[in-house]
C-alpha cells in the first residue's frame, strides 16, 4: 500500500522546491547535479479464496450450464448404479445428488459427485497459507460425506491451460464401494471449529496461485434413513500463515 501521507508530503516538497527554483533574477547561481529521490511503500498482505462448485477440469471454474456427473458404486454388496441418479444442471453454487436410494439389507449406497469443487487460493504472503474444510453441522445418522482429491495441487501464475485434476472415479471403481471414507479420502463430518484437513493444501509455505480439485462422495449406510430432502454446507477456510 503506497503511503499516501508520504506521497503528499513528497509532492508538496517538490512543488515548494520548484517554486524556490524559479530564478528571481539574472544573478541567480545555477547549481547542477542530481538527486536520487527515495520512494517507499509497504505492500499489504492480500489473500483470495475462490470456490468453484461443479468445476470443469479444463478451466478450473464452475460448469455453470453443464450437467454434474454422479457415479455410483456397482460392485456386489452395494445398492448399485440404481442407487444414484445423474445430477441436474448446476444452479446457485449447489451440488445436488438428486434422488439417492436408501440401501437395503447390509448394503451401502455410494454416490460420487465428480469434480464437485475446485479450490483456488492466491496470495502474496511469502510465509504461506493453509486451507481447511468442514461441514457446518455434522451430517445426520446414516450419512457420511468424504472429499476425494483429484490430482495434486497445481501452482503457477498465470494459470496454465487445464491445470485441474479431473475425477478418476468410474462406475466400476472399487474405490467408491465403501462404508466409510477410506485411505486418502477426507471425512467431512466435523463441526465448524474442528476442520478437516486437505493434505495438499494444508500448510503451504510460499506465496502464489494454487488450484486443487476434489470429488465429494456421499455414503448412505443406514437402511432406516427417512425420506426427505437433506442439505449440507461445506465451509472452506483460508488462513494466511
Amino acid at each position, binding site marked *: 500500500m503506497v503511503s499516501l501521507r508520504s506521497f503528499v508530503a513528497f509532492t508538496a516538497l517538490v512543488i515548494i522546491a520548484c517554486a524556490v527554483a524559479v530564478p528571481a533574477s539574472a544573478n541567480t547561481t545555477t547549481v547542477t547535479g542530481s538527486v536520487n529521490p527515495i520512494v517507499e511503500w509497504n505492500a499489504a498482505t492480500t489473500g483470495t479464496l475462490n470456490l468453484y462448485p461443479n468445476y470443469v477440469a479444463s478451466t478450473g471454474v464452475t460448469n455453470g450450464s453443464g450437467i454434474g456427473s454422479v457415479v455410483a458404486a456397482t460392485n456386489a454388496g452395494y445398492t448399485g448404479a440404481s442407487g444414484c441418479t445423474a445430477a441436474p444442471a448446476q444452479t446457485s453454487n449447489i451440488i445436488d445428488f438428486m434422488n439417492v436410494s436408501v440401501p437395503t439389507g447390509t448394503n451401502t449406497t455410494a454416490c460420487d459427485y465428480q469434480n464437485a469443487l475446485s479450490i483456488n487460493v492466491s496470495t502474496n504472503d511469502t510465509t504461506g497459507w493453509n486451507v481447511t474444510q468442514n461441514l457446518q453441522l455434522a451430517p445426520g445418522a446414516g450419512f457420511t460425506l468424504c472429499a476425494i482429491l483429484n490430482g495434486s495441487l497445481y501452482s503457477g501464475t498465470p494459470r496454465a491451460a487445464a491445470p485441474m485434476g479431473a475425477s478418476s472415479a468410474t462406475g466400476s471403481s472399487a474405490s467408491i464401494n465403501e462404508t466409510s471414507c477410506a485411505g486418502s479420502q477426507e471425512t467431512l463430518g466435523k463441526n465448524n471449529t474442528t476442520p478437516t484437513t486437505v493434505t495438499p493444501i494444508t500448510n503451504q509455505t510460499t506465496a502464489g496461485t494454487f488450484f486443487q480439485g476434489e470429488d465429494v462422495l456421499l455414503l448412505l449406510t443406514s437402511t432406516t434413513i427417512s425420506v426427505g430432502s437433506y*442439505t449440507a454446507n461445506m465451509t472452506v477456510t483460508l488462513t494466511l500463515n
Partner: protein
Amino acid sequence: MMYAAARLASLSALAATLGAAPLAAAPGGLGLSVTPGKIELTIHPGSTANIPVLVRNDSPLPAHVVLSMADFTVDDAGTYHYEAPSPNGTSLATWLAVRPREFDIAAGSFQQIQVSVIVPDRELSGEYAGVLFIQTRPPREPGGMTFSARFADKVYATVGSAHRDGRVDRVDAERDGTGKEHYRVVFHNTGTMHVYLNGRIEIRRDGAVVQALALPKNVLVERGGERTIEVAGNRLTPAPYDIVAIVDYGGDTRTGGRVHFDAH
C-alpha cells in the same frame, strides 16, 4: 428433391455446429479477497486501534458476508484449529469489534470494514492473537450441498514489547520400513510472539557433514507453542553419526540440538 437433400444437409451441419459449440457458462463460484489478509500492530494497554480492511467479492454473483471472531491454535501439521473466543491467555478475540457485522456485496464489488482492537487497561505484555472470520453465507435452498468461503484474517497485537526466543527441545532419528532415515526436531517457542522457523539438519560423521537437509520453510509456531518438524533423508551407511539441527527462528541468535545416531 435435390433442394430437400441440400436443406437436410445444411440442417445437419448446423446441428453438428451447435453440438460442438461450447455452452455459454452461467455465472458461478464464490470468491473473497481480503486486504490486509493478516493484521499486525503494536498498541498500549487501554488504547484502541482502528484498522480498515477491504473485502472484495471476487465472484460473478452477489454475496452476503458475515463477520465473527475466534481463537486459534496451530498443530504440528500446520493446520489451524478454531475455538470460541476466550478472554484468557494470549487471546485478543474478545478485544475485537467490527463494523459492519454483515453486509451484501455486489459481484466484483468491495466493502470496507473497520476492525477495532480495544485493549483492556490492565497489565499486559507480549503478543496477543485471534482471527476475524469473513465468511459468505451459503444459499438458502433445500437439497444438495452448499458452500461457504471463509477467510480467517489473523490479528496479532503486540502490547508493550515482545521478543522472539525459542529452543530445540528434542532431536530424534529413526529408520522407516522403506529404509529412509527420518529426523524429528521439536521446537518450543519460549518468546512472547509468534515466530517462523527455517534451518537445516546436518548429518555429521567424524565431525564432517555428510548430508544436509533443509527444514520446511517458514514453519509457524505461535506464542508459547511447540512444533514438531519432520524431515526424511537418504539411508545412511552403517556408522555412528551426529544429527545436528540448526534452527533460525528470526531472533538475534539461532538455536539447535544434537543427537547421536548409530546407523545399522
